[in-house]
């Protein structure tokens, strides 16, 4: 393959993206109202600026939630191969849990679980 493939690749990329943008511009029914132009459209008019300080606790909770969420994702491939690998897989997931548990204890120690 020479540079024709490369040019084709770029053209295809451009077309795909361009098509998606143009298509989404023409296809939908247009409804004009002011709230349509809000960045975050939730039905209720927003008030105030988004550049305000908010409690760092939200952030910490989100991170904690994410950690355990991702852990659950890791459990699925583990569960699939558990039957073949037997003991090795079990020990490995235990190590994984211990490290995760340490992380949770650390967060606890640092009072990330306390809502102030």
């Amino acid at each position, binding site marked *: *393959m*020479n*540079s024709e*493939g490369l040019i084709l690749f770029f053209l295809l990329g451009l077309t795909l993206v361009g098509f998606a943008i143009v298509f989404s511009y023409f296809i939908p029914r247009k409804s004009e109202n002011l709230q349509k132009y809000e960045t975050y459209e939730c039905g209720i008019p927003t008030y105030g600026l988004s550049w305000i300080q908010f409690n760092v606790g939200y952030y910490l909770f989100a991170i904690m939630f994410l950690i355990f969420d991702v852990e659950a994702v890791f459990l699925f491939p583990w569960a699939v191969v558990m039957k073949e690998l037997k003991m090795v897989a079990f020990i490995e997931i235990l190590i994984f849990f211990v*490290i995760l548990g340490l992380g949770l204890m*650390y967060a606890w*120690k640092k009072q990330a679980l306390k809502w102030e």
Partner: protein
Amino acid sequence: MSIQSFLLMRHELMLIIIALIVLIAEIFTPDHKKGIITPLAIILFSISLIVGFLPAIEGNLFGGMYNTSSLIVLMKNILNIGVFIILLQSNKWINLLDNRIKISEFYILLFITLTGMFYMISSGDFLMFYIGLETATIPIAALVAFDRYNNKSAEGGIKLILSSALSSGILLFGISLIFGTTGSIYFKDVVGMVSANDSMMILGFIFFISGISFKISLVPFHLWAADVYEGAPVSITSYLSVISKGAAVFIFMIVLYSVFNSISDIWKNLIYVIAIATITIGNLFALRQDNFKRYLAFSSIAQAGFILLGLISGTELGMASVVYYVLVYVFSNLAAFGVVSIISFQTGKENISDYNGLYKTNPKLSLALTLSLFSLAGIPPVAGFFGKFFLFTAAAEKGYYILVLIALLNTIISLYYYLMPIKAMFINKSDNPIQTFKTDITSKIALAICLVGMVLVGFSSTFFETILKYCFGI
């Protein structure tokens, strides 16, 4: 897979275990006893440093995703030595009252980044490489923003995380193109599929190189370096400029030599241009810096350019000279950073103009700084000269005379700015010089290791010969 085969990963496993022990210690020690974490971390790390030097077995793990050889072990040991020196240098700073609540975080993050770098060096496929790279990068951004009440530190952290996100994106795109054309992410499969006629492959390769160049801060991708280096605490700056850069150079070399050796004509041309640009621009920018950290940032960009001279040759000698130069660079740059960090810690002064008349008040420190700057510039008695000499020899051997000539001219330019601080210390008079102070013992030990290393590595030929024994050319 037996338990024994995990011994291949001893560098990484040791570090992970140390990080976990420090974490457990953090959880179970009361707040007023946090001081014990520093000696704990340093002692544990020195054990891991010694274990790293034990004779190694070669082999690979996880179906070739992880591999190790004597050369790779040697590279890891070099990085280990560097981190050990940094741990000694940062001892006093990390135990400051402001930092006391986050002592263990410093060590955990530091060890985790090092683990990432080790996995990156040992990687046998692009996936492992990428995971290692990210593990190495993300904690560094947290470390750069370590002084969270210092605006510059926070700014540096944000700049680092944004620019490395961009570079990771570019790198991943490159990897996806390589995967798309070869159908494999394993290095050993990719080797056979690489061909110079495949332009999609070449495009992926260029993206891949750009991604790594970000980490080494080679010239078109160096823009983050100065601000991040200036903002970060001095210990982290030295970590970034020595360990992070060294690891990236090592993996760059391994990938170029073992995976992309069949398109060496292409990457040699690329590196030719990048090397000239990196050396010249690094040097020219360093000329005008007054902040010592920014100055060392640009000097380290120029040094990375010199390292490319060894890479371009593609020979055994070239490879050995690169590893040797990194070893020398670890000692000389860490010595310079050591002095800067001592003075910055004691007086808060980080500008070159503040160093006026330092020889009168602190003769030992100014001698150490002089020696390290000599080594960085490549002046004969110290190791830096031999490092540069081997790099230039490797490039000249393959007939890159013009490149060597440009590099030599740049060495002369660099002499000017390397001698500037020396002039400031020895000749310039100052009404308000830095006061005489006593250096703490761990920083002294770290400086002594660096200075002995600089002299010994230069004078004793066994170092270079040992490295040469493990190296391979294209």
